[in-house]
């Protein structure tokens, strides 16, 4: 078993803490298809952990296992030292895990602010009726949560679209709003599913800046899937490389970059 207490120091001098989540011999099957084959790796506190791999490698499936959406047939997910049973998405959210989606999943008709506020739901205790009448505790609670939401809006520089319905926003901004909503949950572990897919260079640069400062400012542990190799190598502390459902590499960006199996997977060699 992996040591739960040690950590390491990153190249830029950040102290990475103990393991928060460990994937132990995970195998996930859809009928006869093995999407993930016996994969083990861990995510440590405060790090930016990337999962990369060619199309169909099983990255999104892996993220869905981490988020608890898929329950693997074999293996265990250990979260904060204890094996995690199968749970409902809202239970996962309460455990401090938030995520964004590859194909944006926002409430299109609602304003940006309202969307970000939905990220605060797990932090609200008052019931529907109290909130409807908006008296006493419910009012205080909304003010507190609004403050958190506003700080995140400020952080992600989306003040100008605070009141704009999401459906009217361009793609790049929607991605940012989704990130804001995930961040509003104040997660301990944030899962990003292709945060930069379909963006232009400038949007990618912005998004990278936000991801790094999120990690820096709030100490959020981030696990992300990304296609853009340049981005991944720049952002992440450690990288897991998957190909055809198997783990073919795991280590720092430099280690991964020089790993022959990884090079083959990306450049393409004949598979047996």
């Amino acid at each position, binding site marked *: 078993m992996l040591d739960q207490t040690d950590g390491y120091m990153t190249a830029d001098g950040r102290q990475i803490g103990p393991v928060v989540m460990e994937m132990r011999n995970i195998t996930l099957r859809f009928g006869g298809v093995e999407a993930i084959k016996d994969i083990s790796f861990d995510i440590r506190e405060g790090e930016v952990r990337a999962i990369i791999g060619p199309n169909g490698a099983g990255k999104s499936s892996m993220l869905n296992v981490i988020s608890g959406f898929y329950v693997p047939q074999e293996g265990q997910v250990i979260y904060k030292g204890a094996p995690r049973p199968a749970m409902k998405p809202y239970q996962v959210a309460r455990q401090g895990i938030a995520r964004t989606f590859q194909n944006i999943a926002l409430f299109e008709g609602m304003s940006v602010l309202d969307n970000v506020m939905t990220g605060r739901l797990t932090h609200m205790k008052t019931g529907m009726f109290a909130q409807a009448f908006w008296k006493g505790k419910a009012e205080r609670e909304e003010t507190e949560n609004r403050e958190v939401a506003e700080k995140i809006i400020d952080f992600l*520089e989306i003040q100008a679209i605070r009141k704009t319905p999401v459906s009217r926003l361009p793609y790049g901004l929607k991605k940012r709003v989704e990130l804001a909503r995930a961040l509003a949950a104040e997660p301990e572990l944030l899962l990003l599913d292709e945060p930069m897919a379909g963006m232009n260079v*400038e949007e990618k640069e912005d998004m990278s800046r936000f991801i790094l*400062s999120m990690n820096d400012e709030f100490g959020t542990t981030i696990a992300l899937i990304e296609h853009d190799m340049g981005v991944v190598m720049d952002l992440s502390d450690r990288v897991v490389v998957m190909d055809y459902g198997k783990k073919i590499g795991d280590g720092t960006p430099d280690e991964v970059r020089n790993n022959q199996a990884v090079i083959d997977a990306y450049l393409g060699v004949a598979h047996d």
Partner: protein
Amino acid sequence: MSDTLSGADGLVSVPALLHRNATQFGNAPAYREKEFGIWQSWTWAQTYKEVEALALGLLDLGVAEGDFIAVIGRNRPYLYWSMMAAQMVGAVPVPLYQDAAAEEMAYTLGHCGARFVIAGDQEQVDKVMDVQADLPTFEAMIYLDPRGLRKYDPAALTQYSAVQDRGREKRAALEPEMKARIAKLDYDSTAVMLYTSGTTGKPKGVVLSNRNVIETSKSSSEFDGLKQSDDILAYLPMAWVGDFIFSVGQALWTGFCTNCPESADTMHTDLREIGPTYYFAPPRVFETQLTNVMIRMEDASPFKKRMFDYFMGVARRVGPAILDGQTVATSDRLLYRLGEWMIYGPLKNTLGFSRVRVGYTAGEAIGPEIFDFYRSLGINLKQLYGQTEATVFITAQPDGQVRSDTVGISCPGVELKIADNGEVFYRSPGVFVEYYKNAESTADTKDSEGWVATGDAGFIEESSGHLRIIDRAKDVGKMASGAMFAPKYVENKLKFFPNILETVVFGNGREECTAFVNIDLNAVGNWAERNNIAYASYQELAGHPEVLATIQSHVEEVNKSVAQDEMLSECQVHRFVVLHKQLDADDGELTRTQKVRRRIIEEKFSDIIDAMYDGSETISTTTEVTYEDGRKGAISATLDIRTAAVVSVAHRMAAE
């Protein structure tokens, strides 16, 4: 009190004014800033405490009298306080343009030898760090927004609030020194140094004294009857003299409230929420707003559009007269009242102009249609003419004497004279002290009697006494035929079309005039969308045949109008090119205040200019561009050169 000290009721320095406001209007709002979705505000008394704490902290950091402290960032109360705090410790604040590239900053920081920099955020900190190795006098940096700066070396950086905290802690020890330094300030001490935008060559540091700032603020505030209860929105670059005079000078003199937007992108929302009573914007901002209104009206339902068109017609007919207090038929007054209720009121509210009592535009000529549009809505928009060297005000239009083609009468205390070559000279209490470390330029600009050359050619209209500006004096030239060439005159006419964002006219010493045109992506893009014209880039849209045809019709219309002018009828545009890239300050083609730099454009695009004169139909060219982050790239394009119809002047004369 001696004569020099008695000016403006003994209030002879910025700190003195701040102290007066803190005691006299202690509980009135002085600064507001929208943060976290809420307008945070500070009263004059609170402002004084904040500024004082920072000043004490600066003393603790070792700021000496006469030191230059650069202030870089977007408009925020904290940065205005930085300038005041600098003045409190006898240092000179130097606000710099926040969108300047690192190299430009290196020049200004090196030129004034700034020992300290107060930077707004990580972006500015990074830029200064990039160049600090070349700045021998630079010592320490203070930053405001800590985001992204956690990993930076704390030895090189101090947070703004930490400086204030230290100031508060050591108050007892440092206060006497601060008071002594404030007491030493008089009417002749330097209030601020502002760098000119550098239309020609390197920026020059304009030194303004307390006398310049306070006298000008006083007379201009009185001229427009500014009140303590007024509100302004501070959104123009802090490095620009106008912002300094409005948000610091006049704000301190009259004690009105300066409101800072949440971010650059939210300016229009914030404008609407604050509803300033005193508002300044360059013509470009008014143009953009009008373009946006018109674009949205195009998309409105037919009923709304007809109502809008009808009432705007009424407003155009009687609005300006009502605003100027002239007699208007009762029926028209009633119609206008109805229009106010149905159209003008809501429109002004949307634009954020519901409460504007005094509005100014300056910097460039404003299109008569644009100007009249705002005035017809009942917004008291006026023009002023000024420059950094005059501490803004040279001429301004008094209420009731407002026209789009003049810049008004001389401001209180300003004398005007027109030289033989048409150049405008002025003399006033606002005349700058000197260009820092540049005695030669100072002598070139300001003569021994205190007359300053504006560099603009103009004349005083005999009937009204208003000043009219034709063009930059050095840009006014002669065509091969000997006729007068005033490019700005033609350019302004072209720019009044919403589709045209920027244009440059050539023709000095030539047989005929030619022009570069930049399309307005907003207006043309919207048109393309409505007409199902697909385009992938600015370049593609700018080269679209239908766009070229539209621009050609605009050019031809301008030619007709130019032909009417006796002096300038030769300046009709014979051939033009719609450029494949937008002229940009990052590429050096515009100044940071968005003015065209002709010499640089002429050099950079010489191949296109040659092609316009040698009769070619197309020209293939490659242009270097600089991205926002300083990287360089190149765009190549093949541009069509279009020939526009001109009105034959001889023919017109014969016909008359």
